[in-house]
């Protein structure tokens, strides 16, 4: 969230309810911050299932394939040596590393993709400037609407959040903003 209005809620249930409420009011760019993943929050925000797995899969295949190819290149193509009378292209022996490299690529690419999708690392974010936001990682649940939402209106959102049970509401973002 670059900029927007946030409201602090006390329980995860209230947070889900607030999201539902905001959506009902027609807001689409809703975000929420909670100490742990809250059941139903994503569904309430009508977010789709993450697609990281599908992004990672081709990389994993490519990593495994490259590993196999490299082994073939080293042992059967570039410097073919008679090793114990074994075939130069000893396919079964090349499998373990192929598998390991597939897993390794998947894990590393997965992490990179996660960072890319979530914008991490990002030590500073406008929300961190919000008074009391530090409890979002402990026992508070913050829900907000992004200023980029087509129906965004600061006063209206603040009003809605208070109605939905926010103990306090705050503006996150540049100070000079509306």
């Amino acid at each position, binding site marked *: 969230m670059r900029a927007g209005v946030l409201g602090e809620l006390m329980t995860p249930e209230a947070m889900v309810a607030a999201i539902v409420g905001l959506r009902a009011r027609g807001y689409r760019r809703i975000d929420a911050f909670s100490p742990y993943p809250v059941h139903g929050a994503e569904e309430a925000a009508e977010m789709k299932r993450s697609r990281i797995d599908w992004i990672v899969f081709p990389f994993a295949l490519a990593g495994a394939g490259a590993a196999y190819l490299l082994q073939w290149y080293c042992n059967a193509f570039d*410097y073919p*040596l*008679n*090793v*114990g*009378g*074994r*075939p130069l292209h000893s396919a079964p022996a090349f499998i373990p590393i192929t598998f390991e490299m597939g897993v390794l690529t998947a894990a590393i690419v997965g992490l990179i993709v996660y960072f890319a999708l979530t914008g991490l690392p990002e030590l500073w974010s406008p929300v961190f400037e919000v008074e009391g936001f530090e409890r979002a990682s402990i026992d508070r649940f913050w829900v907000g609407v992004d200023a980029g939402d087509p129906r965004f209106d600061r006063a209206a959102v603040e009003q809605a959040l208070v109605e939905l049970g926010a103990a306090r509401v705050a503006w996150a973002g540049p100070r000079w903003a509306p």
Partner: protein
Amino acid sequence: MNDDEPFEPAEGRPGDGEPDGITRRAMLELCGASVALAAATGCGQNKRDKLLPYTVNPPDLTPGIPLRFTTSLSLDGYATGVLVRVNDGRPSKIEGNPEHPASLGATGAMEEASVLGLYDPQRPRAILHRRAPAAWPALTRVLGQDRPDRGAGLRFLLEPTGSPLLGALLDRVLRRFPAARVTFHAAARSDSGSLGAGLAFGRPLQAVHDLRKTDVILALDADFLASGPFHLRHAQHFAGRRRIAAPGAPMSRLYVAEAALSPTGSLADHRLQRRPGDVHGVLAAVAVELAGLPDVALPVPKEALLAALAPHAAREDRPLVGAIARDLARHAGSASVIVGEWQPPETHALGHLCNAMLRSESTVDLLSPTLVSLGAQEQDLAALAREIDAGGVDTLVILEGNPAYAAPADLDLERLITRVATSVYLGSYDDETAAVSQWFIPARHPLESWGDARAYDGTISLIQALIEPLHEGSSPAEMLAVVAGDAHPEARLLLRAHWQDRLKDRDFEAFWRDTLKLGVVTGSSSPAVTAPIVPGALLSALAAKAPPAAGIEVALRPDSRVHDGRFANNAWLQELPRPLTKLTWDNAALMSPALAARLGVTDEDRVRLSLGGRSVEAPALIAPGHADEAVTLHLGYGRRRAEPVARGVGFDAYRLRTWTARSGAVGLEITRLGGAKHPLARTQMHWSTEGRPLALRATAAEYQKNPDFTAEQRGPLPSLMPPLPGSGAGGPPQWAMTIDLSICTGCGACEQACQAENNIFVVGKEGILKSREMHWLRIDTYYEGPSEAPRVIHEPMLCQHCERAPCEYVCPVNATVHSPDGLNEMIYNRCVGTRFCSNNCPYKVRRFNWFDWEDHVPANQGLVRLQRNPEVTVRQRGVMEKCTFCVQRLRATELGARIEGNRPIREGEVTTACAQACPTRAIQFDSLSNPGSAMARWRREPRNFAVLHELGTQPRVNYLARIDNPNPEIG
């Protein structure tokens, strides 16, 4: 020879003539070599190496191309001819001289190892007088001065020698000092052979056995295949009759009676375990049986003989000795009796009688003695000791032999020498004798000496220096020349003068050149004489011999490695496993399992051995197959004053030796001592095959009945792997080896040759105790049957160069791979040292550099580096190594053949160091593409097999199952 005279190197075998111009270059090369070698041990890539060219290039030398020169190495007076490989001025490897009768191209372990002695950093470097450095002129003044007493107080003690030069010099000395006396003494040599001949023939003749013609042999306490002056010749000739080329082919038969299992005994078809003192009884019983056979011509009165032998013969089992006697008689004319060095004269005499009965004219030659003998001017060691004790000796000149250590203990020479006013000792080390002598002169190593020598059959060979002396020193010839009156004798000039004088009219330079090239003086062997048995003295001696007493007999024998102690500072020999016991870095009291059980003694227990008031402490070692009620001790250990390698190694068995009982005596008392065990470093700890088909054997009869008894251990196996490229006749080389177990004596010469050729480090006793020996080739010895009377088989085990090598596919860095010509290559510089290959080697022939052995073991340091073969990488710590089939030799030969127009490598053109050394020629090496080679022919024999064939490793080293030829009459 004039140094400035151009010298044409002689072409062809065996030697490359005389090294030229060594005086000017020797030290120079040492410098160059040490720089090169200093670099060879490390990475050496960061500092810039130096190139040191000759200032004047010797005419016959191309730096980088090794030369081979002939010379001779003598042991206890008898010479063995050798070829010495010299790399850029450094003698680096001893090989056999095929032209020399005592070598026939083979070498023993001692010959192989002697090159290390040359570079021993602990060799003394200066003349000492009363332990302070002194100069040669001062010594010559003392030795060369005139004596008013005509030499009455002058005594010489030297080792027996056959050298014509020394003989002539002794004559000169005795002409100048007629009253002087000379003593010949060798601790590891007995005179009972010549005494026995004296009893039998009335004169001291030497028996030379020609085993090329011998079908049945009865060896009595005689290890004729692995010790004695002609053992290399005996071994090769014996193997020729022993090797059975096809099922049903004839082969010889060997009976052995002995106490401790010897290499010879391990090949016996029937082995009688007897105390040394009971061996006479065996021969007596055989003689009695022989005398009773119809076709035997008896040169002595039968009744008298039977009467004389009866007390001895009665102790033996008649059916057994009867069968032996009948077998011998059946082969009369091609049978012989060999009596061991340490048997008493009566046994030797009886042996001569038996040989006469067996019509042995063609198998046993009788020769006049080869050694120098001075008649009345000679006295024995006991007489010398008595004279010194009586104060009759003012000057004692000791020329080698270390008598203060190695003389019989009851003579107490160590004390007596100090009582001589002037004692002069020429010795290889600053040893026990040097410590008690006033003068000490370092002796030259044989490889830096000039001289001549005679083989056991009298053949004369020259000893030529192959390197300028590394240290100040002298030789017996020079010392005698000084006494004879020369001021500045030089051995080379003495030698040339002697032979010039002797040859008179013949072209001396041609003789000199040819002899040095060939290594022997052609036609110089002693002629055989015919001598009839003289019955009188023989019978009375036999009758007078008392039967052996009861009790434990101790047998004192020279060690198969350090001999009489002279090689004690040779780390290679110390670490070379003794045959059969595989003991290194120690000697031990060998005893039978039954005796050990009776005494409550186990391996490594310390025992006190007492004999006639003297005693030593020794570790016990149970030796399967040892005669009961007997203990064998090996001499040459427990040096009281010795150099670092020998220090603290073993116990001194000379302490139990007396002048009259040099071979041992009955009456040994053994006490078990408590306390900690004395760890014995042995390279093999398990002696049973556990029923596994590892070393196959059969009798000749079984072989004839079932020639395919090794079928399970050879032939194709099903495999999922792609087929291997074959090796057709005449195609590119495919190296392979075949080893005939029938003729392997387990002597260890191959192992020693391998070490010398391949820069193999020693690891010390500690290393052996930790099972970290580095030998690329080992000899596995397996015992079968009861440990009281086991059957033995030796199996040389080296890298098998498997075509489907299990070591190769587990190496993560491709440091061990297969070459197109069938070698299992080990690339040290690629090895990271995972040791996975060793785990997966079912033959366990890979060796690991656990440490930087040069850094870790002092015996690998210093001058000994100069011995190293520059064609073989010195291995760094952390890398694996193993037998390479001497790949440096293969590649050199291959390059030569390729340069000569890509011609194929000829049959027998190259061989490995082990095959080259093997006394029995049991190891054959060649390319499979030479189907006519012995290696390939042997493989086609039905008894061919591969060790662990069932694993599918397809080894390139194949074995021929051992075939024994027991007498069917004996159950």
